């Protein structure tokens, strides 16, 4: 990748210690009833029902199922299912978390069905390669680092499972070179288990290395069919197939300068960001913004009961000096955005055209190739809303 941004990592706070802690149970969880593609799920339980941990509570047609992440009573069902904990954390069956007999011998169709049943979306077709995306080049994020250090063999086994499911001969684990102990650990496991066709690729720590388009260009020739899974998703694959456990919890980095004791935690899906912050002993000072995800690509949370989802890597409490609201100046054509763009388009020209509704010119300068990484917005001295303008140009 050319033109990446070297951002200040700020990862030390959550890497001492790097193990992910298991906090106390939250009082309630809220599971949104929308699957990643936006389809609404239909609930399988009613208000007042008692549910158990790992119980399937909603499903979409041909999509991944939704599970309760703790045991308790269903409080309300609207666009999300709210479950209030009974403190017992009772699993839905005795076999939850126990190794499934002879799971290595399951067929491709059986594994695919298992994954969907346990809350993981799997494409139907064949692929040339599977990439486990453990790159986290945004500041503060260390959940993949923690996961890979503690569960490296499970991730590799998950890679093998995915290779079977997707009929993919190649397996690549992509991470950054500032995680050298992780890549050494993975390589030693691959060596001792004699896994062939599994490769660990360490990239320079530049944002946006974790972007799928950038990884695809850096790893493979054009037109290779590649399936990307995040490291957390890969671990969930292993747990679903080998340990009979649905995807209801994941490692989330709770960090940011406002947080009292930043750390990686195993957080149940649906836990509110307020409760997640409490695991980290709360906020020392009021954050200007609470983010779900990293500071470059994450979304700002509007309400304290916003839930943590299956793809949430981090809950960040950032102070006002880091997320200052800036006044927007006119473009001074400095060209720093062009120097920062990883796909070599011309953000300055696209946004200047977008401001004047000249969509053909914006397209000519590469608007449709934008990967929305946000590098241009980051470097712009005028603090122009580059990503919004490029999106506007693409829509127009």
């Amino acid at each position, binding site marked *: 990748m050319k033109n990446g941004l070297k*951002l200040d990592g700020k990862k030390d706070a959550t890497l001492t210690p790097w193990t992910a802690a298991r906090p106390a149970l939250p009082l309630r969880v809220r599971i949104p009833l929308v699957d990643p593609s936006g389809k609404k799920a239909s609930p399988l339980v009613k208000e007042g029902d008692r549910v158990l941990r790992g119980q399937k509570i909603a499903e979409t047609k041909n999509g991944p199922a939704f599970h309760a992440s703790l045991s308790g009573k269903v409080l309300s069902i609207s666009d999300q299912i709210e479950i209030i904990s009974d403190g017992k954390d009772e699993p839905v069956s005795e076999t939850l978390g126990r190794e499934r007999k002879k799971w290595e011998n399951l067929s491709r169709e059986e594994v695919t069905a298992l994954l969907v049943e346990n809350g993981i979306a799997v494409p139907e077709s064949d692929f040339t390669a599977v990439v486990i995306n453990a790159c986290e080049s945004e*500041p503060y994020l260390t959940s993949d680092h923690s996961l890979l250090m503690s569960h490296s063999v499970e991730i590799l086994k998950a890679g093998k499972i995915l290779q079977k499911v997707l009929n993919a001969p190649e397996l690549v684990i992509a991470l950054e070179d500032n995680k050298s102990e992780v890549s050494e650990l993975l390589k030693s496991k691959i060596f001792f288990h004699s896994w062939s066709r599994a490769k660990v690729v360490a990239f320079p720590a530049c944002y946006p290395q974790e972007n799928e388009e950038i990884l695809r260009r850096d790893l493979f020739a054009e037109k290779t069919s590649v399936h990307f899974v995040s490291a957390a998703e890969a671990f969930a694959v292993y747990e679903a197939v080998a340990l009979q456990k649905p995807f209801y919890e994941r490692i989330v980095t709770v960090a940011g300068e406002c947080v009292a004791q930043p750390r990686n935690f195993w957080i149940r899906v649906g836990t509110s960001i307020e409760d997640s912050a409490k695991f980290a002993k709360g906020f020392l000072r009021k954050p200007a*913004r609470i*983010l779900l995800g990293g*500071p*470059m*690509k*994450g*979304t*700002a949370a*509007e309400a304290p009961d916003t839930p943590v989802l299956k793809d949430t890597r981090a809950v960040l409490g*950032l102070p006002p000096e*880091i*997320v200052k*609201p*800036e*006044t*927007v*100046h*006119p*473009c*001074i*054509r*400095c*060209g*720093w955005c*062009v*120097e920062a*763009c990883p*796909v*070599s*388009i*011309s953000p*300055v*020209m696209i946004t200047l055209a*977008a*401001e004047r*509704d000249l969509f053909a010119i914006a397209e*000519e*300068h*590469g608007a449709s*190739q934008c990967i929305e990484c*946000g590098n241009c*917005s*980051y*470097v*712009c*001295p*005028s*603090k*122009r*809303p580059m*990503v*919004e*303008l490029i999106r*506007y140009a693409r829509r127009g």
Partner: protein
Amino acid sequence: MPAEADVRAGFKPAPISNFPHIRSERTVPGFFWTLVAALLPATLFRCVLYRGDGFRALTVVITSAVLTELLAGKWLRKRPGVYDGSSVSIGLLIFQLLPPYLLSWHFAAAGFLAIFLGREIFGGLGQNPFHPSVVGAGLLWMFHPQLPDFSNAHPVLLYGEAVCLFLGGIFLIVRKLAPPEIPFIYLGTVLALSWIFNRPAVWSGEEIRWGVLAGFFLITDSVASPVTRQGKQIFSLAAGIFTALFGIGSGIPGAVLAGVLLSNALIPQIDGRVRPAGARKRKK
């Protein structure tokens, strides 16, 4: 105009919920005040050199430039004048481009013309095709061709000015406001071509001083230069060629001003042809 964010500058802060949530430390005021800081050694040197006339000229031109920007902001674009240091930097450059023996109203006019005709009528900051200080100084030249002789100063003092400008220019490069090769491409081209065309005074104080001024401060202006790195290099080369060619017949200041203005005129062509890999025109 996009509905969800009124992106005309200075009106509203960008909406807070959109990524990225962190931004680099660089700002537009920081940009221009750094430029002002880079010009300070040369400004001080010139003031000390020309004493009364120098201080007078400096004060008049900066006041004129800043006032013009404030008034233009009020009348033309209904937004308060933006205190980002850009008009101060333009005033300082005009102070370098014109001899301080001129009358006060000459400097006032230069400041006004530079900001108004050089920038505001094109739409304000960021919209000017030509370098505003060069427009201001150049217009004054056009209307007053009998300007007093520039090379009145002792040659050693001209080299001194060149050194101050050079130090300021290196400061600009270190602070990453200008790519390092651009001034040297310009200077190298001018000196090489002048030597080839056998001009008598290639290494004179005047030529070096104007070359350093143009190469480090006029060519590197962020608005009046192409956006891509290679575009800036081509622009620098073209400016050097034009300056050397014009310098064969006329004096050095005129050659530099005309060279910069002519290559400014080429910027749309350069930007149209020199594009990053993903933005190139596709063959249909």
